[in-house]
């Protein structure tokens, strides 16, 4: 294989991995602070993308047509809206069920996800059809042999990686991050140390859901298309990535996301004429890894004790 082609595969893999990682980080954050699986996460991403699209149409209506401003406003509005939605989910669906078995939370978020994507399908104009997402980034392309680098793809990748690094810094270097980690490690002790548990949970859900919205917009910009069902598979893949990396661990989620993308790309490369099985291959390997390391690639340093 020539270098250009290899470069193209790596670029594709990185792009996919970045999106999976953004989703997986959300799952892992929620699990960290509340020990719950939020299955509506993929659909929150989808709603974020649609919010972005609606914002874009709104901006075009009022005459703001300068692309950089549009991108920034679309990203900001979608992220804030989904952060708010995330807080509402935490406050009204997750926190009240804190004492209930985790299965109940899992079910309620699963149902919420269904409500979200059915609502988009039914109430967004022509919501059942694939929607074109505008190209708001420069589309110049540079070709090196078989490798085509588009400026927009590069910008999307950098933005995504930037956010991942930002989240890492937020969790590990700030006081807020310290509080989140404290709550994740031991809720009772964190409370006695004066940390406002409810507030931290709400903030964590806001961050995770905001990330999902960000990933949704990047997804739209990269694929130039969004649809009501896009959150389903992304949710499952994001969840698997978080699990395989070690649920509750940010690095694990990031590694898991990139690992999954690599597996899918390798799946197509290794079985070029059976590409329909790339997901079977990727999930199959994930199952093997789970059998080998049941608690994920990066194990939690402190295991839960009764």
């Amino acid at each position: 294989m020539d270098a250009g082609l290899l470069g193209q595969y790596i670029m594709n893999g990185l792009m996919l991995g970045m999106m999976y990682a953004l989703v997986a980080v959300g799952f892992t954050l929620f699990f960290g602070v509340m020990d719950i699986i939020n299955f509506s996460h993929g659909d929150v991403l989808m709603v974020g993308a649609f919010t972005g699209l609606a914002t874009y149409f709104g901006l075009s209506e009022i005459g703001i047509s300068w692309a950089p401003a549009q991108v920034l406003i679309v990203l900001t509005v979608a992220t804030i809206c989904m952060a708010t939605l995330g807080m509402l989910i935490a406050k009204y669906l997750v926190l009240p069920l804190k004492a209930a078995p985790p299965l109940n939370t899992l079910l309620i978020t699963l149902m919420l996800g269904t409500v979200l994507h059915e609502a988009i399908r039914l109430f967004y104009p022509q919501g059942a059809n694939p929607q074109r997402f505008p190209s708001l980034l420069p589309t110049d392309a540079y070709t090196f042999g078989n490798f085509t680098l588009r400026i927009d793809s590069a910008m999307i990748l950098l933005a995504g990686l930037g956010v991942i690094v930002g989240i890492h810094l937020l969790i590990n270097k700030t006081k807020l991050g310290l509080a989140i980690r404290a709550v994740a490690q031991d809720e009772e002790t964190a409370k006695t140390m004066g940390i406002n548990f409810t507030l931290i949970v709400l903030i964590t859900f806001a961050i995770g859901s905001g990330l999902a919205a960000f990933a949704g917009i990047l997804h739209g910009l990269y694929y130039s298309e969004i649809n009501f069902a896009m959150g389903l598979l992304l949710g499952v893949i994001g969840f698997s990535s978080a699990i395989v990396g070690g649920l509750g661990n940010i690095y694990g989620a990031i590694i898991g996301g990139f690992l999954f993308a690599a597996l899918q790309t390798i799946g197509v490369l290794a079985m070029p004429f059976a590409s329909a099985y790339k997901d079977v291959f990727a999930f199959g390997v994930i199952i093997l890894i789970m059998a080998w390391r049941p608690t994920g690639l990066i194990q939690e340093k402190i295991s839960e004790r009764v």
Partner: protein
Amino acid sequence: MKTIRIVFAAVLAVMVVFGLASTAVGAKEQVKVGFIGPLTGGTSSNGLGGRNSADLAVRLRNADPKAKYKYELIVLDDECKPNIGVQAATKLGANKDVIAAATHYCSAVAISTVDVYHKFGLPIIVWGAVLPDITYGNKYGEVHRVNGTMINQNETAAKFMTGLGYKTWAVIHDTTDYGKGHNKYFSEYLTKNGGNILGTFGVTSDQQDFSAELTKIKSLNPDVLYFGGLTPIGVRIRAQMEKLGLKAQFEGTSGIVSDTFIEGVGELAEGVLAFREGAPTEKLPGGKFFLEQYNKQNYGEPPEAYGAFAFAAMNLILDTIEAKGPDRKKVRKALNKVGGVDSIVGKIAFDDHGQNTIAVITKYVSQDGEWTVWEESEYASGKRKLRGM
């Protein structure tokens, strides 16, 4: 008290008399007919257009004073999913009041429901699905189809494309029966016509990311990328080709001939080729009449590509019921003998398998945001050029 009773009796008497009178005037027997199509989901635009068109056929018939029966249309949604389709088919089949039905746009659904119709003895006419096996894979007398199949479609496509001078192809198809069928027949006819397929890629019908497949195809460097599948992933593939700098000509099937495809990819639709059974609605023998009547009803959605076929299928059903009476067996027998009946989509003649043998295939190219008949396009006149020409 007595007067009240008298008044009450008088009112009753009046009601009875008027009631009798009204039944005497509108003494037409109620007959139920069915329609199934994808009313929700990614292909719902075609389903809703088909539903409106079938509804139009029923409304026109009910408005006709010469009609012997009053028809009621029962509409069910198959969501383009085989399992939901089987449920809908069972519901119609089990309802003995339903005499016949026009069913299915999605091939994967139609192929899984034919057994149900056979079991219940419900005669149906398929109005949109193009998989050959729906009619040719069985000997069921209940199953008929007004539109052509993907065999005719791909034969024309292969001849036309090799005729233009293209030499090499890469194929992406979805792994439903629909996509696999397209792949099978296109590959068969292409090889016969001297074309060369460099690689074939199966993809799932809800896949988002095609970058790995498209990168592989890019390294194969074909003249044409043939896509056998429906609009939703067609939109994604066309958009992602551009991101990866894949310059091949994009060729689709009847599955992407919809306004949704052009809206979905925007300016990237320019120069995309596709093939479809039948002809554009306005070019059909009764197309003008159909569109006039359709627009009069103020439906919320356009008839889309297969609306005229749904109308023709429903009209044929109504004609047969008018002639033979509301009886499933008689209707089935009469439909099996249809040979050369005029309809708005041209003549209809069913062979032993219930397949309409008079199938016209039209070649389309997307030009300025519209599906244009090839012969009338600027690509055919040489004013614009397809990729790699």
